[in-house]
């Protein structure tokens, strides 16, 4: 098999170069006038201003809590089982009786619950698998950290106060 040549011949207009440059200049000028004179921008002043994503955006995980600030998670391991990136690590135990006014409903609890966000691919399977609506992906897209350890979300971090799917 030989090589197939997919390049095409330049047209006369393309060969002249100047028309293309003028079209480009026209766009630049249009944006300049819109932005400078009429204050109409396509970019925003991040981080002072933040973009609003749809509620379906999948960002940093959190675990929902009930009104007593007890996590809804019952350590069923379904999220750990489904996670394709194998980045959830749970250790479960029995909730001791004095901290369990819920009876059999919340007798099992996670002792530790770690999500390695560096491995996570934000597929949202964990949220879908969870029978208790406990683990969820928030709208928070600011995932930058200054060390690898910080990228491992533990139970304390996951149980942070949320406003729906948005960070408070």
């Amino acid at each position, binding site marked *: 098999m030989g090589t197939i040549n997919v390049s095409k011949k330049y047209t006369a207009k393309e060969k002249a170069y100047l028309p293309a440059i003028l079209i480009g200049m026209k766009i630049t000028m249009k944006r300049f006038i819109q932005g400078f004179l009429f204050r109409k921008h396509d970019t925003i002043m991040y981080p002072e201003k933040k973009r609003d994503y749809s509620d379906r955006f999948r960002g940093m995980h959190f675990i929902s809590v009930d009104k007593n600030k007890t996590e809804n998670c*019952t*350590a*069923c*391991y*379904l999220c750990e*089982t489904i996670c394709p990136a194998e980045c959830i690590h749970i250790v*479960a*135990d*029995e909730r001791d009786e004095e901290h369990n006014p819920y*009876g*059999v409903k919340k*007798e*099992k609890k996670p002792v530790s619950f770690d999500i390695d966000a560096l491995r996570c691919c934000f597929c949202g399977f964990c949220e879908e698998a969870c*029978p*208790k609506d406990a683990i969820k992906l928030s709208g928070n897209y600011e995932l930058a950290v200054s060390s690898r350890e910080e990228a491992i979300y533990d139970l304390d971090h996951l149980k942070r106060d949320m406003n729906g799917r948005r960070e408070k």
Partner: protein
Amino acid sequence: MSNITEFDIKKPKVDLNYASDKKPVHSDPNPEAKPLPKVTIDGKTYDFKPGDTIMQVAERYKVHEEIPRYCYHPGMPIAGTCRMCTVEVEKAPKLMTSCSTPAADGMVVHTRSDKVMKSRTGVMEFLLTNHPLDCPVCDKAGECELQDYNYEYGPGTSNFKEEKRVFEHATTKKLSDKVTLNMNRCVHCERCVRFTDDVTKTNDLVMVNRGWHKELEATTEAGLTNEYQGCLTDFCPVGALTWNDFRFKKRSWFLNRKPSLCDGCSKGCNIEVHSDSEIVYRYVPIYNELVNGHWMCDAGRSSYTSYTNPLRVIAPLMKHNDALHSTSIQTLLTDLQVHLKNAASIQLVVGTDATREEAALLKEKVPTIIGKNIAVSYFNGTNGVQTSADDKKLDELLKMKDLTPNTKGVEEQGLSPLANGEVNADIAILFRNGRAGIPKMKADQKVVLWGIWSQDELKSFPSKNILGVIAGLATIEKEGSYKNADGIVQKFHPAITHKGGALSAHQVVGVWKTLN
């Protein structure tokens, strides 16, 4: 029963015991004389032994996967109460329970006809009316017969719109410190009741009330007291009875399952080691007609904890300035060799928890490597047992007095028991795997410890007396064979991989040889 006395537990050469209660349903005085009767199941004809029930014939020939069952268990008397196992028998007016109907010559059986499937769906729907379906927190999930059968036969939807029945007082009821009952999940198969009535004969469980209110209760205030409670949690088809040690520790589908042997007593029960990432979570018994049947005792079931004990020594330790420090096996053995060469007399004591192979190796190789005449003897020291003659059954079922697995196997190597159970030499090398006792000794006895030792056990020696500790492997981590109290030799293979610095006796001897 065949007269096999030696087998590999990976492939035990035993026929399956299908006769519940070990009694045939009806016995033929001379079964061999006549040609075997025939029964047709799902279009194929099979020979069967007179006395077999339909389920047993189907099981023997593996007709389909399995006839679903709740109340039937091969180790217990037949109850025929759950109606899950019904099959269609031609010319019979109604569906028959295959667990309790004896097969007859010329019988034609359909195990998966429409009528049968409809009946199974009905049974499933009734069982699920009150079932809490809290599978996410239920320890049985993944190995639950209710889940499995519902997946295969269940209706998928329910017509039950009423409030589910809840046993408020028995949702998390500790029947003993080993077993927890969640009555809401019970399917009333009564395997547990029959087990305590007919297998352990302790009668400690009973069903009270009827119908909607039928509830499992312990017969005494003390709750469950028998020594085989763990078995209840194995065969309870649902998560009603759960083993406290395992409760909430792991989901069953993460577990690796490998066969091994329990080394908790001289019975040598066959077990399956359930582990994940080489961490053991539980032992469960596997069926071996010649040794343990379907069961194992609670002490054996919990015995893995001494191997997962964080205080277990898992690296070679060497004495330096009267304290023990971890080191490499080469350094340790070089150092020990100097001590041993200078000693006036050396004694090697092999615990009766050594495998047959280890006992033979130690007896042969250690004296030649050290290059001295060494007195080699064995020591048991559990429950006052000295030799296998002192061993006896502690109950009707499995438990033995001798708490080490291989007394007979070690005796077979021609070793003699340690005189008076006391060591008496310049240096004593004590080889044991955490099960045999520690012999008596004088206050300044120098010792070399080999095998499985915990920090607590090391504390029982003055620290200047320990010349070194050679960390060894546990039964579940190594290969070998044990000869049990009944003279049956059972070979086993590693069920998990040891992740620490302990070495098998063969590896240690191999290194030791190269140092000379």
